[in-house]
C-alpha cells in the first residue's frame, strides 16, 4: 500500500525545519530515515497532513568529540554509527546494540535520533541511551534545551520532544575503563527484541566498582535496573555475585504480554539476560 497524500517540506537548516513545523499546524510529522514512519504510513496507521523531511538539513549527521563526551547527530544513520571510531572507542555498547537493529538495508536509512524519538519499547537504542546516561539536545523556536535520559522517555512511543521541537543531537559521556555488553533475545532474523539488556561495568581490583543496566521491552519505556546496579556496586567480580544481583532485574518492571511472550516470561528473560550481559561485560 502507498501512504495517504500529504504536503511535503524539505528544509535545509534546523531553523527552516522548525519554521516549517510551526507553519504546518498540528498534523505534521518529521521524517528522518523513514524506517519507522514510512511503514506506518504505508499501513495507513499514520496519515499526517504534512511531512517535514530532515534529509537535507545540514549539520545533523555525524559524530564529534566534545571533551568528556561524544556527540552523535540525530540524523546519523545506524550504519554510520556502526562504522564510527569515536563510538567504538568511547561507547561500544551503542555500536553493539545498533548492529542488532533490523538488517543492513534498514540500517543504511534509519537514524540514531529517529530510533530514540520513536521510543518503541522494543527498540534497542533507548535502553542503551538510558544505561549510558546520555543527554538529549532538543531544539525549538525559543532555543535549545538539554534533557537527561532519565526524563527523556516519558511513556509508550512518547518522549520529552514536544510539538514543534526537534531532537538535534545526543551527548554520550566517554566511558573510559568500562566494558559493555548488549544481550538481545529475539527469535528470527531482523526481529525486534522480546527482551534485551544493556550493561556497562567498571572493574577495580577484582571487584565491580560500578555497573549500569538498561532494560529493553520491560515496560512502556526503557528502564534502569537500579536494584541490580546497587547490588553490583562494590560486589566481588564473581559469577555467583553477578547471578545473585541479576535475580533482582525484574523488580519494578511492567512488561506487556503479547504474541511473542507473556509478561512472566519476559521477567524471567530479564534476569537471565542481565546475568549474561553483566558477566560478559565484567569479563567473567
Amino acid at each position, binding site marked *: 500500500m*502507498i*501512504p495517504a497524500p*500529504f504536503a*511535503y517540506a524539505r528544509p535545509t537548516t534546523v531553523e527552516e525545519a522548525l519554521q516549517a513545523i510551526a507553519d504546518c499546524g498540528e498534523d505534521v510529522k518529521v521524517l528522518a530515515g523513514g524506517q519507522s514512519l*514510512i511503514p506506518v504510513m504505508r*499501513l495507513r496507521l499514520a496519515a499526517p497532513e504534512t511531512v517535514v523531511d530532515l534529509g537535507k538539513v545540514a549539520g545533523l549527521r555525524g559524530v564529534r568529540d566534545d571533551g568528556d563526551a561524544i556527540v552523535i547527530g540525530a540524523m546519523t544513520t545506524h550504519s554510520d554509527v556502526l562504522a564510527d571510531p569515536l563510538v567504538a572507542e568511547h561507547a561500544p555498547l551503542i555500536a553493539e546494540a545498533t548492529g542488532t537493529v533490523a*538488517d*543492513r*538495508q534498514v540500517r543504511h536509512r534509519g537514524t540514531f535520533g529517529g530510533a530514540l524519538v520513536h521510543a518503541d519499547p522494543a527498540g534497542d537504542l533507548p535502553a542503551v541511551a538510558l544505561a549510558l546516561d546520555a543527554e538529549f539536545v532538543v531544539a525549538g523556536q525559543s532555543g535549545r534545551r538539554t534533557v537527561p535520559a532519565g526524563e527523556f522517555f516519558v511513556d509508550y512511543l512518547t518522549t520529552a520532544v514536544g510539538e514543534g521541537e526537534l531532537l538535534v543531537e545526543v551527548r554520550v559521556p566517554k566511558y573510559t575503563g568500562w566494558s559493555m555488553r548488549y544481550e538481545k533475545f529475539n527469535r528470527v532474523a*531482523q526481529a525486534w527484541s522480546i527482551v534485551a539488556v544493556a550493561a556497562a561495568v567498571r572493574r577495580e581490583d577484582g571487584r565491580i566498582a560500578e555497573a549500569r543496566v538498561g532494560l529493553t521491552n520491560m515496560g512502556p519505556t526503557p528502564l534502569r535496573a537500579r536494584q541490580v546496579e546497587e547490588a553490583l556496586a562494590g560486589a566481588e567480580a564473581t559469577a555467583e555475585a553477578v547471578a545473585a544481583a541479576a535475580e533482582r532485574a525484574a523488580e519494578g518492571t511492567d512488561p506487556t504480554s503479547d504474541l511473542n511472550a507473556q509478561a512472566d516470561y519476559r521477567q524471567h528473560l530479564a534476569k537471565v539476560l542481565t546475568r549474561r550481559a553483566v558477566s560478559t561485560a565484567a569479563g567473567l
Partner: protein
Amino acid sequence: MTPITVRVDGASYTDDVEPRTLLVHYLREQLGKVGTVVGCDTSNCGACTVHLDGEAVKSCTVLAVQADGSEVTTIEGVAGGAGLHPVQKAFHEMHGLQCGYCTPGMIMASIDLLKDNPDPSDDEVREGIEGNLCRCTGYQNIVRAVRHAAAEMRGGANGVPSGSVSPAVVDTAAAPHVAVQS
C-alpha cells in the same frame, strides 16, 4: 507534485512526483524498471532492494522525493552493460533461486555485503542478507552462490571457495536416494 532529479542505472531523469510515491513505484511505474519487485507491505522481505548512492536500501521504504539528487542502481543496471554481474552469474550457476521473486533483492543485498566483507563465512552471509526473505530455496544455495561470487570477485583459484562443491553433489549427498542424472 515535487520535482526530482535522479540518476538511475546510469541515465538521468527529471520528473514531477507526488510526495507519497514510494521509490519502488517510481522505478517500476514511471521509469519501467520492473526488475525491482515488491514482495510485502511491512518492509521485511527485501525483494525491493536497490542501491541508493551505493548503499542497499529497501526501495519500498524510501520516498521517491528522498532520492532527489541521488544515484540509484537497480538489478537492471548492476552489470553495467552486457553480460551478468559476478553475483548474478553465481546465483545462476549455484542454483540460488527457484521462483526467482526474491532474487533481484537478494543479489542487490549480496553485492552490498561483499563490498563491506569480500570473504564472508556462511554465517556472515546469512547475517548479511537477513533483510531478505526467500520462500523457496531454504537459503542453502543462496549462501553458496554468494560465497562463490565472493571468491570469483576476489580472483580466487577458479572462482571456487575452498570446500565449495556444486549444488548437485551436495544435494545428492544429503539425499542419497536421489539419482544423479548425467
